[in-house]
């Protein structure tokens, strides 16, 4: 399942129409598509014949869900998420205060979008991303950093420069290592717009740029999906999306320990006590990591523990593991030493957490912190080490959350999967 999100900094640039066009183009290519209406106006929902309140409003109002927020049109599922006017600001505020509501929303949303769909296309309202930035607790499962984002603007100079500023802010917050596109819609001079995009592409480092000319036939669009005209550029975008992705975007989950469904949306990052973040080998994923850390920092006080060789600073609250520890992890003689070292490290971590409130401990990374002794089986020693470490920490500070970053060289991370509550691949 891939998530494609359209967004813009202002209304009237044609986001909803583009969403519908892309959905049609993808459906034509045999993909199962679901649309999520996250626009305050509820335009797409209206076209799909949904006249009841959106999912968010229904959940917040405590109504029994009867499926009136979902409808199908021409084989495309449409889910009305927002679309009830400006009340969503208050709704989000209520979600923040009542965790049960959030859990219900996550569960409903996840089941609706994940059952067999290849593409989830989100029509995000102008200022929706803004809201997401301000409310990280809601953002991760709605708009995971792994989604493909498309920023839409018209060809006015001010709109373009404002969009660039916006992209930089958002992509800095998300992960620039994932692809995103910039799209100039309703271009009056196509050539000129393509030139502008060429420059812009270098500036914001976008994966893809698109310019779509002004389409007069859209003025006569009646609201019937089958009558929606097609655009060559959107067809090309659909081709691009169905071709194998440039960046592998996968999550895998510790199915042995926890039911898969819970983590499909990545919400485990925000609820679970112990998380294994699997980073691609060769120092990749550091930007993704920074973005996950930024998000986690809203959850509590972030405490980063790393070894001396990692020079990059991730966070201001950083601790270094002594070079002596490096010798200790090679000196292990038997499994007893592993327990001892794990407890010792646990003790040390607890000591530095003494005055921290709701701490989130981030350990970077497994290869530099875990045991590396020829004494015993590699997998066993690592599992026992981290199991002991986690148990020791969580028994003493139950409110604690622990994140271990594991660089996935020689498949060293996989065996650790079932020691942690959730596993997320960066």
């Amino acid at each position: 399942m891939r998530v494609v999100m359209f967004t813009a900094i202002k209304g009237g640039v044609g986001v909803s129409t583009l969403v519908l066009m892309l959905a049609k183009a993808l459906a034509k290519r045999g993909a199962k598509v679901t649309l999520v209406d996250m626009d305050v106006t509820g335009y797409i929902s209206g076209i799909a014949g949904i006249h009841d309140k959106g999912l968010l409003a229904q959940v917040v109002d405590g109504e029994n869900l009867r499926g009136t927020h979902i409808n199908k049109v021409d084989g495309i599922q449409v889910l009305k998420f927002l679309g009830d006017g400006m009340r969503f600001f208050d709704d989000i505020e209520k979600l923040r205060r009542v965790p049960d509501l959030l859990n219900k929303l996550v569960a409903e949303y996840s089941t609706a979008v994940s059952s067999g769909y290849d593409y989830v296309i989100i029509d995000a309202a102008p200022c929706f991303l803004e809201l997401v930035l301000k409310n990280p607790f809601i953002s991760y499962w709605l708009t995971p950093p792994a989604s493909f984002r498309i920023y839409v603007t018209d060809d006015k100079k001010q709109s373009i420069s404002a969009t660039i500023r916006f992209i930089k802010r958002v992509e800095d917050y998300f992960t620039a290592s994932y692809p995103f596109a910039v799209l100039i819609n309703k271009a009056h001079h196509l050539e000129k717009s393509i030139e502008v995009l060429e420059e812009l592409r270098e500036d914001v480092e976008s994966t893809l740029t698109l310019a779509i000319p002004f389409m007069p036939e859209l003025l006569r669009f009646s609201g019937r999906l089958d009558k929606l005209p097609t655009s060559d550029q959107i067809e090309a975008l659909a081709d691009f999306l169905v071709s194998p992705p440039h960046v592998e975007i996968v999550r895998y989950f510790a199915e042995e320990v926890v039911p898969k469904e819970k983590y499909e949306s990545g919400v485990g990052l925000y609820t679970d006590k112990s998380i294994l973040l699997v980073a691609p080998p060769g120092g990749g994923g550091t930007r993704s990591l920074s973005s996950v850390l930024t998000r986690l920092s809203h959850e509590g006080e972030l405490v980063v523990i790393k070894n001396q060789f990692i020079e990059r600073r991730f966070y201001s609250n950083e601790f270094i593991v002594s070079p002596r520890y490096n010798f200790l992890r090679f000196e292990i003689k038997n499994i007893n030493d592993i327990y001892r070292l794990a407890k010792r490290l646990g003790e040390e971590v607890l000591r530095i957490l003494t005055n921290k409130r709701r701490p989130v401990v981030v350990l970077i990374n497994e290869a530099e912190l875990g045991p590396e002794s020829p004494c015993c089986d590699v997998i066993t020693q690592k599992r026992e080490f981290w199991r002991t470490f986690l148990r020791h920490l969580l028994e003493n500070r139950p409110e604690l959350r622990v994140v271990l970053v594991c660089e996935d060289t020689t498949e060293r991370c996989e065996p650790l999967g079932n020691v942690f509550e959730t596993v997320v691949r960066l």
Partner: protein
Amino acid sequence: MRFINLLFFAAVFIAPAPIVLATLGDIRFVWLNYGIWLSTVASAVLFLNYYLLYRRGRKIDYPLVAETPKGRVAVFVPTFNEEPQMVIDTLRSIKAALKDRGDIYLLDDSTKPEIISVLKSFCLQTGIKYIHREDRRGFKAGALNHGLSLLDDRYELLAIFDVDQRPLEGFFEEALAHFQDPKVAFVQIPQLYSETRSEIAKAARYQQEPFLRNIMRGRAFRSAFFLGSGAVFRVKVLKEVGGFVEDVITEDVATSIKIHERGYISLYVDAPLIWHGEVPLDVTAYHIQQNRWAFGYYQCLGPILKSRLSFSQFFDYFAGYLYWLKKGPLTLFELLAPVAFLLLGAMFIVMDPLLYALAYGSYMVTSILLFISSVRHTNYGVVGFIYHQAVEYIAFPAIFSAFLACLLRRKKPFKVTPKKGWKRALKPILPHLLILIFLILSAATGIYKLLYFETDPNAVGAIIVNVFWALYHAFFIAVGVAMALAPIKDEEPLSAVSNRISEY
């Protein structure tokens, strides 16, 4: 000055007196009698101190996780006419380890223009601050103080490296992590003697092993002293004590005393984070080193006695003094004793040999066993013990000459001039050969007497005791002489050195 410290000091020297009275034989040899008993008392006190420190050191541990260190660091590398390539290699290591935490100052006192120009241009290219003094006032301590006077307030910490000591990556992360506590004045990290290309060098490394692995570990948080290199200081404290002490040739010990008596603490983190320590390769170089160290420590007796150190700190420093006393003048008494008795028939001690053998023998066996058990976590073992003992006999003339120099109130020890060729190899061990001949003669005489003359059980016992000592000393001196004459290996390829480091 503290009364209890002085009392303890006096007690060590007075303690033998009653034993002397009880065992005095020939009055002309009362000095030898006293010397032997003082040596016994000194070794007992030394061993007590050693064992207590070993036990204490086992309990000391440092945190494994610490906040990312902050504060700018200045690094001083004092040098004087050293091989420029070695200096440059060391500067490179320091630069790599230091990263962007501060600046390196090369304190060059060299007098040779070709060395000066090479170092100067290297420093210019690499952004290392080059400081040259024309006069060598105060030698190394003077150079450090000169550098200290040039530092502005931006530097919170000061690291010092000799040119033959190269920090590994992680040195600063480790050392700087311990400065959270404002009481910490300096952190010492030991050097790793990797350049052991001769038997003497190997022995010198073994000799350091109990000191670096046990004594210094046990002295952490109390009296761990600056080893002259591989330490990071808090600049504020250094300025408070008026910089490094210049009028003692081992400025490291003297400066440490000043820091400790002000109530600051020092740490000793025993992690292999410095490499390429150059150990003296031949006897001449070894003598120069031991002579310097001994002389410097003898000079420190005054400061130690006058200091306001707490008793336990005093005990540690005083044990250091006793060590040099034991390995210098007191060893002379021990070597003289069997010769005097067996060759000259001097009755300097009169006591029941059985009682002596039981009392001293059991003490000796216990202490050797405890000692070996205390070094079992190091690469020491029985081989190390033999090397260690032997090399201390080799050091004896150098230490003794330092004692004489200090007694004569000289400012510097007697000069030992290294010579080229066979003289360099043989000359320094001539005293040992002489002593060896006397010891073997004495032992032979003793054995001869035992076989053909003596029947009185007391006399037989006395001869056996003395023959034992003559052979004991002779064995280690012979091993030492063999070590001194063994060839020096060529420089090893780097891979061999790194293998040894990984073994460590």
